[in-house]
């Protein structure tokens, strides 16, 4: 169908009073030779009717709406099968600049030029829907989280391939005597749900169970992952849930707490085995009459695990309660630094106190003796060192180490190196010292990805995106971690987490089959297309993609896996030869929009500064500056981008070569606490910017002309000031000598 562009300008909300509409209309009719209609209130029924009538008559297929921000009235300006182009004349023109002013008028006209230009350059995206899509979910790990995921996926109508490394199902929790309560009244240990869960999974015809096997190869993409197992079988699955769980911290490293010196110093896992066996006894075979639990045995310790393992407090409470229930005379002590029973688990703490368990705040400084053990406690509440003993048993509440790698498999050098290069999102100040390198062991999934075989993990070794608002954000689309491999968690939370991961797996399967992106650009049908004729095989796109969506073929050409793609455009921004593009988003389009602006000559003393703004944070912040009535220089022209990572450095040189006096990049904070929802888009932009000085020098331009500003969505009051300061600074450098070329 032939594209027919028509512009519709709104005079409502004060736009009509603030801007010269004749001149605006002239931009459309004279410069773009397109029809234009102005209306008093375009979003009202009458206004919409005007647009709809033209569309129904076939006179216009792509409306350009010059009115309010594209962030509002989205539903009203939504027409069947297409999204119109929106030129923001309200929030970013008349609400943030003086009415009836010459510069405001120039800004309004330029905004219209930019978005009329965009209209001429966009095409409706054609989604990727080639081939067969599988709806099977692969669950890796047959512990509590994995089994839950398998059962719940079946309940939602999906087939499951469940792979467990061990010969039996259930993982650590299979043999637990009881579990920490997660149901009201949260007061008593609950029955271990695992035996029943195992039966349910075994009985399900929709679950294909493979035990004693690992994943040797994973390739493909959501909807069409190709998975090979160590038993030689191969499978096609739509999505993957990684539930490989945890392993207890190696207690042999805790000799300072007496482990190894006495057979009666045991870990909480060993205690659990004794409780499951039905009778707790010391090495000598007697029922213990005095037992001390030492909390944080290895956790919250810079020499061992820097993090809190979350569950140890409540596990000790449970075991202590079980011991007192078995023998009311037994003296049970819990030596703790902070009692961590968040949420409703507080009731379980009270239950343990009710049972007579004694809580001592302090650190165990010494553990001595083989039989009749004495623990020296630096008792903070009594303010003295207390020799606690002789004790019949000491239980070390050891923490959780995530199975984000397979400790039994050899490490792949390539993978480890890539893992270490990953972003460390956690602070390194204070006593918290995250691991310096990737945890030992091989990959769990053996991803055949350009960016390595591992699911990325954080510096503390857990697989996570560490997003707050989007805990299932993943850097490997279609692969969702859940359970303690993601974060130390108890079974109650692991159950919820497994359900969450299954939902995301189902979602990705569904969306992949329709060629739609998943979060955050959910529903986006576009995806990167690479013209290999122009490709220089520089590999920047394959390296920089935050989601590992692009691989390399045997000739080193990039291969896009469309359903892995999250449509941020970082690849497009990375490509030095502009050969990566989306149907509706290209470097050429952005460049044309930049160039569409009228650049006054140097004698007009009207500098032009291009702001390239992240559309999720900086752009809304500028909208809200308008809503709040904050004013800023009319010399800026704002170009929204999907992510600053999609900004090609070439765009900057394009802008400078047509006479812009400066360029300001506004993106989310990169680094440890990165706030970019495409993980490292803004970080990539920063890196590209650092290399642009050579370009500037070659153009004989001052480096001050190009600046990057960390902008958050809450910066609506700050950004106007920042803009004015930068405009003044760039103005002081003087006009761009390229003006008028």
């Amino acid at each position, binding site marked *: 169908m032939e594209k027919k562009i028509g512009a519709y300008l709104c005079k409502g909300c004060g736009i009509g009073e603030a801007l010269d509409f004749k001149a605006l209309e002239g931009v459309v009719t004279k410069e773009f030779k397109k029809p234009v209609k102005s209306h008093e209130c375009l979003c009202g029924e009458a206004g919409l009717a005007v647009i709809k009538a033209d569309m129904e008559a076939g006179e216009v297929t792509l409306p350009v709406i010059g009115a309010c921000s594209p962030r509002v009235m989205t539903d009203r300006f939504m027409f069947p099968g297409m999204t119109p182009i929106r030129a923001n004349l309200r929030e970013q023109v008349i609400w943030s600049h003086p009415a009836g002013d010459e510069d405001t008028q120039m800004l309004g006209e330029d905004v219209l030029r930019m978005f009329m230009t965009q209209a001429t350059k966009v095409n409706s995206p054609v989604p990727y829907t080639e081939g067969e899509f599988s709806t099977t979910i692969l669950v890796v790990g047959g512990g509590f989280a994995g089994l839950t995921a398998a059962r719940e996926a079946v309940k939602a109508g999906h087939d499951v391939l469940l792979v467990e490394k061990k010969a039996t199902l259930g993982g650590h929790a299979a043999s637990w005597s009881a579990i920490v309560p997660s149901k009201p009244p949260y007061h008593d240990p609950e029955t271990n749900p695992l035996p029943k869960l195992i039966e349910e999974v075994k009985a399900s015809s929709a679950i294909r169970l493979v035990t004693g096997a690992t994943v040797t190869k994973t390739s493909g993409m959501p909807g069409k992952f190709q998975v090979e197992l160590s038993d030689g079988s191969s499978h096609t699955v739509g999505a993957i849930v990684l539930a490989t769980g945890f392993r207890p911290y190696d207690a042999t490293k805790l000799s300072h707490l007496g482990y190894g010196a006495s057979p009666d110093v045991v870990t909480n896992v060993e205690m659990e085995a004794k409780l499951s066996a039905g009778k707790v006894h010391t090495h000598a075979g007697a029922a213990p009459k005095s037992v001390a639990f030492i909390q944080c045995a290895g956790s919250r310790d810079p020499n061992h695990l820097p993090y809190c393992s979350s569950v140890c407090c409540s596990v000790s409470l449970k075991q202590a309660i079980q011991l007192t229930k078995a023998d009311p005379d037994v003296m049970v002590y819990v030596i703790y630094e902070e*009692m961590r029973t968040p949420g409703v688990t507080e009731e379980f703490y009270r239950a343990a106190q*009710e049972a007579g368990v*004694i*809580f001592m705040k302090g650190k165990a400084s010494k553990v001595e003796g083989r039989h009749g053990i004495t623990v020296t406690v630096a008792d903070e509440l009594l303010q003295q060192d*207390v020799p606690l003993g002789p004790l019949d048993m000491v239980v070390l509440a050891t923490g959780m180490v995530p199975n984000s790698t397979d400790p039994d498999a050899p490490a792949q050098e390539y993978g480890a190196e890539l893992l270490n290069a990953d972003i460390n999102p956690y602070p390194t100040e204070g006593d918290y010292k995250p691991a310096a390198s990737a945890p030992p062991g091989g990959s769990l999934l053996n991803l055949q990805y350009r960016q390595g075989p591992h699911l990325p993990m954080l510096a503390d070794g857990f697989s996570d995106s560490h997003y707050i608002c989007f805990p299932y954000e993943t850097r490997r689309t279609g692969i969702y971690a859940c359970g303690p491999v993601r974060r130390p968690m108890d079974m109650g939370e692991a159950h919820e987490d497994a359900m969450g991961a299954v939902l995301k797996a189902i979602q990705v399967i569904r969306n992949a089959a329709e060629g739609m992106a998943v979060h955050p650009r959910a529903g986006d049908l576009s995806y990167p297309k690479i013209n290999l004729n122009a490709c220089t095989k520089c590999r920047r796109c394959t390296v920089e993609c935050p989601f590992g969506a692009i691989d390399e073929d045997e000739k080193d050409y990039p291969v896009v896996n469309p359903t892995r793609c999250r449509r941020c455009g970082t690849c497009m921004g990375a490509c030095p030869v502009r050969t990566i593009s989306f149907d509706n988003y290209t470097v050429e389009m952005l460049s044309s929009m930049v160039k569409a602006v009228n650049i006054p000559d140097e004698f007009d003393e009207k500098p032009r500064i291009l702001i390239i703004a992240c559309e999720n944070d900086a752009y809304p912040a500028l909208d809200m500056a308008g809503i709040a009535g904050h004013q800023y220089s009319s010399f800026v022209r704002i170009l929204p981008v999907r992510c600053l990572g999609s900004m090609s450095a070439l765009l900057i040189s394009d802008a400078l070569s047509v006479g812009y006096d400066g360029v300001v990049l506004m993106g989310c904070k990169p680094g440890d606490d990165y706030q970019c929802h495409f993980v490292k888009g803004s970080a990539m932009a920063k890196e590209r910017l650092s290399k642009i000085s050579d370009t500037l020098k070659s153009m004989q331009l001052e480096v001050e002309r190009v600046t990057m500003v960390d902008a958050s969505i809450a910066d609506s009051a700050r950004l106007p000031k920042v803009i004015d300061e930068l405009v003044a600074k760039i103005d002081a450098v003087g006009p761009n000598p390229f003006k008028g070329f």
Partner: protein
Amino acid sequence: MNAISPNPSRAYDLNFARYVYENIDGGERLRMCMQCGACSGSCPIGQQMDHGPRKLFMMIRAGMKEAVLTSNTIWNCVSCYNCVVRCPRKVPITYILHDLANLAVREGFDAAKKADNARFAKAFMWSARKYGRTDERLVTGIYYFSFGLLEGMKRGMGNQKIALNMIKTKRMHLGMPHAIKAKDELQNILAKAQEIQDRHGKGA
């Protein structure tokens, strides 16, 4: 000395704590204490307490029986119940302190004999037992002279003005103490209660 409660043999021997849980009025909730300090911080004369209720309760767990029963904390309680209403674990602290004081009296700790509160309580109960009612004049007098003749006279003189004011306003009764009619009856009841108490080996 008359050991009613068990003597712990080592740090955190729980025999004394368990005695307190089971035998002290309100003691069953003592195990719920989470050592937040709200009680000691809310006490109007907390600064004058050697340990304060919070630490005293930890000492009970630690088996520091003698230190607990000789602590001034149990004698300094002003019975304002501030701690009781603040306690996030609903430990009836005031009741526990009173009953611990009684335990200290019964176990015959020297500190319990010397404490102001114990002397006052003795004088008070003497009046209550003897007459069925307390006569403030007699109670104060006996209390003062419990410190010895000289000290008693000194205290009496020191409070002469107050006493005079009370007499002037007819708020201190000068004749025979007010008494109930059925003194024997009350004494029999109290004797029986005392007997039951001793039978239980505890205050409750």
